[in-house]
């Protein structure tokens, strides 16, 4: 499967290209290479984690999200996680991001939406937490590069009683 942008018939991206991109993103997150990870986002991008069990149209204007970062705060989040004083992630937890079920949802004028399922394991201090759900990305192609305009990570769980926090990028 592939998607062609309606305004730019010359621009086509295939699912396997997108999978490569998402697997690369997961590898950066597993390695805690967050500064590099941030370069996958376009300036002005958003990163959201709606409350557990939310539907795909959840909106931070009227729902109490866990994370509703604009680009500034996302940048600050990355800076924070690079510091030793981000106590919850120091010493760093070990993480594995598994990504599957990649599908292209739709394309618009100059962006397209991609979904994937995820299971992310976070292990620290003798316990392992499991985050599971699906991502919906809005992406664009800029000069041949895929850039994330928005990443929304939906946690398909009842609540965070077992995980306690969203202190990693999931």
């Amino acid at each position, binding site marked *: 499967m592939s998607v062609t942008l309606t305004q730019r018939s010359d621009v086509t991206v295939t699912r396997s290209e997108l999978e490569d991109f998402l697997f690369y993103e997961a590898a950066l997150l597993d390695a805690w290479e967050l500064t590099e990870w941030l370069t996958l986002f376009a300036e002005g991008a958003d990163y959201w984690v709606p409350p557990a069990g939310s539907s795909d149209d959840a909106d931070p204007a009227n729902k109490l*999200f866990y994370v509703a970062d604009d680009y500034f705060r996302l940048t600050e989040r990355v800076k924070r996680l690079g510091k030793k004083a981000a106590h*919850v992630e120091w010493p760093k937890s070990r993480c594995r991001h598994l990504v599957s079920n990649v599908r292209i949802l739709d394309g618009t004028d100059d962006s397209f939406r991609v979904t994937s399922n995820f299971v992310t394991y976070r292990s620290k201090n003798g316990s392992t937490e499991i985050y599971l759900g699906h991502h919906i990305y809005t992406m664009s192609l800029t000069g041949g590069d895929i850039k994330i305009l928005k990443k929304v990570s939906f946690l398909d769980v009842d609540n965070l009683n077992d995980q306690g*926090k969203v*202190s990693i990028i999931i």
Partner: protein
Amino acid sequence: MSAIKADTIIEPYVLENRGQSLFQVNRRVFVDDKILTLEERRIFDKCWLYIGHESELPEPGDFLTRDVGGRELIFVRSQDDVVRAFFNTCPHRGAIVCREKQGNEKMFRCMYHAWAFDLGGKLISRPEDERYHAEGGDDIHDLVSVAHLENYRGLYFVNFDEAATEDLSSYLAGAKEFIDLTVDQSEVGMEIVGGTQEYGFDANWKLLAENSFDGYHGMPTHTTYFDYVIAAGGQLGDAGTRVNEIHDLGNGHAAIEYGGPWGRPVAKSVAGWGEQGEADTAALRAGLERRFGKERADRIAYHNFNMLIFPNLVINNIMAVTFRTFYPQAANKQHVKAWALAPKDESKIMRQRRLYNFLEFLGPGGFATPDDCEALKMCQQGYQNLNYTAWNDISKGMGENSQITTDEEQMRVFWREWDRRIQGAEK
């Protein structure tokens, strides 16, 4: 963690020596199952416990299910517009009657044998009703109401103790003043925004009681948050007020009151909100002044407070307003529920600022709360050594003429009340 045998508990649990300005808490109170059982009987079975806010049930028929103090409850606004609380347990053979988190219904029907109840809890139908001939009280087949349900300014509390003699208003004592300071932000009332955050972690519930109004840990635990505030255009020291006080509010409730560098969607702007933010907060402040006069308006606008209503309702009126409850699942594990409160008539932009503020500090994805949870987990883990190092020190500020928010008097207020109740002492 290895269990501590009940017969190894060493009293006292709380030691206060005013002469030596020393206040200590026995670390066993965080790990011991016998203490947990005492807490269930002498605290959670006896105290007024927060169940929810009136705005969560705006219309007749609205309900939500919530566990409060280890009980599964239905919190509902009946057709007659009366707010009620029932045990969510079928009088037939005990199944959970209402299995949804929230909704609007005309009746509740148990899934198991289809007994149906109206929103007043009355049994209205059941299959093969003609085959029941039991004599007894009229109500033995109805949903059971909790013993007491009362509200103060829209905040509903339950009390499971049939014999409770103290009503909510007198129980809340001085805490009412701080509820007023929060609710008075709006002329038309406050509302819970965007649902309930639910998260859990491995630490005794009393550690979160302490942490929720611990002014001493702010800088060391949350430096990354303060870095962020500065990056976002806030200025440390730019507080709008010099207040720095601890209040003993009676009955184990306490609050710290202080200025802070962040913007308050009530009526304190920060550089990051721009000229528009200045104009918006000036208008809000003028409204407060008209209603309350300058002094109280300033207090509502500028003063932050973190309050604990004994045993476990936190109201933090800071860069946003949060309510929080937390209950033990075990001595070393708790479940937290957290909410955001906002004026019903808040402008769209101010609501945005409020929720943006909330998420930058609070909740499972905030820049601060996860570090708090980590600190409390580290304490819990440290208590494995309690046979060798048995006491927490809560003495900061003792022997001083006045208490400031980085002292620990507010925690001593909590612990004195906790100890009094656990010892079964009269007031």
